C-alpha cells in the first residue's frame, strides 16, 4: 500500500467560530477537513459540558485537517487569524495517508 507523508492538524475551537474558521481555511485553499462534535472539556476557563449549555455559546468543535507538509504554514496562518484571540487549542502531528493524490 503506497503511503505518503502528511500533517494532521487538530483544532479545538468555540462553536460560534466554526464558520469563520472553515471560511478562512477555504480562502487559504485548504478544502479538506472533518468536523467532530465535542462533548465537554476543561481548560484555563474551567470545565464545561455540552449538556450544561442553554445556548451553544460555550460549546466547542474539533476540526481535523490532513494536509501536505508544504501547505502546513498556510493552514496555520489562516487558522491562527481566527483562533488568535479566542479560547482553543491547535496541535499538529505527523501522519501518512493512503491515496495521496487526493491531498
Amino acid at each position: 500500500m503506497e503511503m505518503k507523508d502528511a500533517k494532521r492538524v487538530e483544532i479545538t475551537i468555540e462553536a460560534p467560530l466554526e464558520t469563520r474558521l472553515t471560511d478562512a481555511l477555504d480562502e487559504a485553499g485548504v478544502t479538506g477537513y472533518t468536523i467532530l462534535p465535542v462533548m465537554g472539556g476543561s481548560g484555563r476557563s474551567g470545565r464545561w459540558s455540552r449538556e450544561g449549555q442553554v445556548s451553544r455559546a460555550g460549546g466547542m468543535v474539533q476540526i481535523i485537517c490532513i494536509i501536505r507538509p508544504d501547505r502546513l504554514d498556510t493552514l496555520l496562518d489562516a487558522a491562527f487569524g481566527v483562533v488568535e484571540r479566542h479560547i482553543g487549542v491547535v496541535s499538529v502531528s505527523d501522519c501518512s495517508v493512503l491515496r495521496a493524490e487526493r491531498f
Partner: protein
Amino acid sequence: MTRRPGSVNRSYWALAQTILALAAQNLLSPIILFFALGLLAALVRSDLSVPEAAAKALSIYLLFAIGFKGGVSVSDHGIDANLLLSMLAGLVLSFAIPFAAFGLLRAMTSLSVTDAAAVAGHYGSISIVTFVAATSVLQSQGIASEGYMVAVAAVMEAPAILSALWLVARFAKPVDGSDRGRNTKGLWREIILNGSIVLLVGSFVIGFLTGPKGLADIESFIVSPFKGVLCLFLLDMGLVAGRGLRASAHQLRPGLIGFGVLMPVLGSLAGLGAALLIGLSAGGTVLLMTLSASASYIAVPAAMRVALPEANPSIYLTMSLGITFPFNLTLGIPLYLSIAQAIGG
C-alpha cells in the same frame, strides 16, 4: 381627597400582600417547581440531564408555538395602531438599557470595562422563556395582552449587542494597537438571522397569515400540551442554571448578585414607563416590563463570544441565567404584575 401617611402605608402594605400572595401562588405552579427541581438536582450534582438535542427541540417547539399563537392573535384582533409604537419602544429600550446597566455595573462592581459592557448587553436583550412564563401567569390570572408582544420580543433581541460593542469601543483601552479591528465581519447578518429570531418571526408571520383556521389545525400540538412542555424546558433551564452557579459561584461577589436583582427591577420600570406612554393593556404592560427586565442567555452570549472574546463568558452567563432568570421567574413576574395592576387600577 388628601391621603394621610397611614393610608399610604396601608396601601403599600396591601400592595406587598398582593405581591406576596401572587408570588406564593406562582412559586407553587408546576413550572416553577420543575425549575427548582432542576436547580436542586444540579446543585447536589445529580447526573440528571436533558440531552442537548432534546433541549434544542424543546426550544424550537416553544418559539414555534409562541410565535404562531402571537401571529394568530394579531390576525384575530386586527393590527393595532400601537403595534409599530410598541416595536419602536422595544427597539429604544433594547438600545438604552445597556447604558444604564453599564453605569450601574461600574458603580456597584469591579468588573473591567469589557466584562461590564458584555454583561450590560445581556440585560438590554431578552429571555424568551421568561416572556413565556409571564404569558402563562397572565393566562392563569385571566388577563389579556396584545398578541404582537411576541414581535416586540423579537425586535428587542439584537439592538443591545450594538450598545455593548459601542461601550467597549468608547471606554476600553486598546490592549494592543493592532487589536482594534474586531471580529465583527458577518456578525450582524448572523445576529439578525439567528435561528431563534427567524423561527419566532417566521412562526408569527405564518400564524398571522393562516389565522384562527390555521390555529385550529395545529391547536392540539401547540396549545394544549404547551404547559407540560414548558415544565420540561424549565427543568432543563434549572439544570443548566444550577450547573452554571456551581461552576462560577466563586465569581459571584455581593455587588454582582445585587446588580442581578436590582437591574431587572429597574429595567421593568423603564418598560413600565414605555407601556404607559403607548397605552398598552395591563397584560401588555406586564409583558413589556418582563421583556425589559429579562436578560438574554442565547443570542447575546453567542455574539459576545465572537465579537468580545476577551469578556469572560462565565460572568455574563452566571449573571443572566443564574441570578436574573430565577429572580424574574419567581419574584420578578409577580412583582411586575402587581405594579402594573396597582398603577392601572
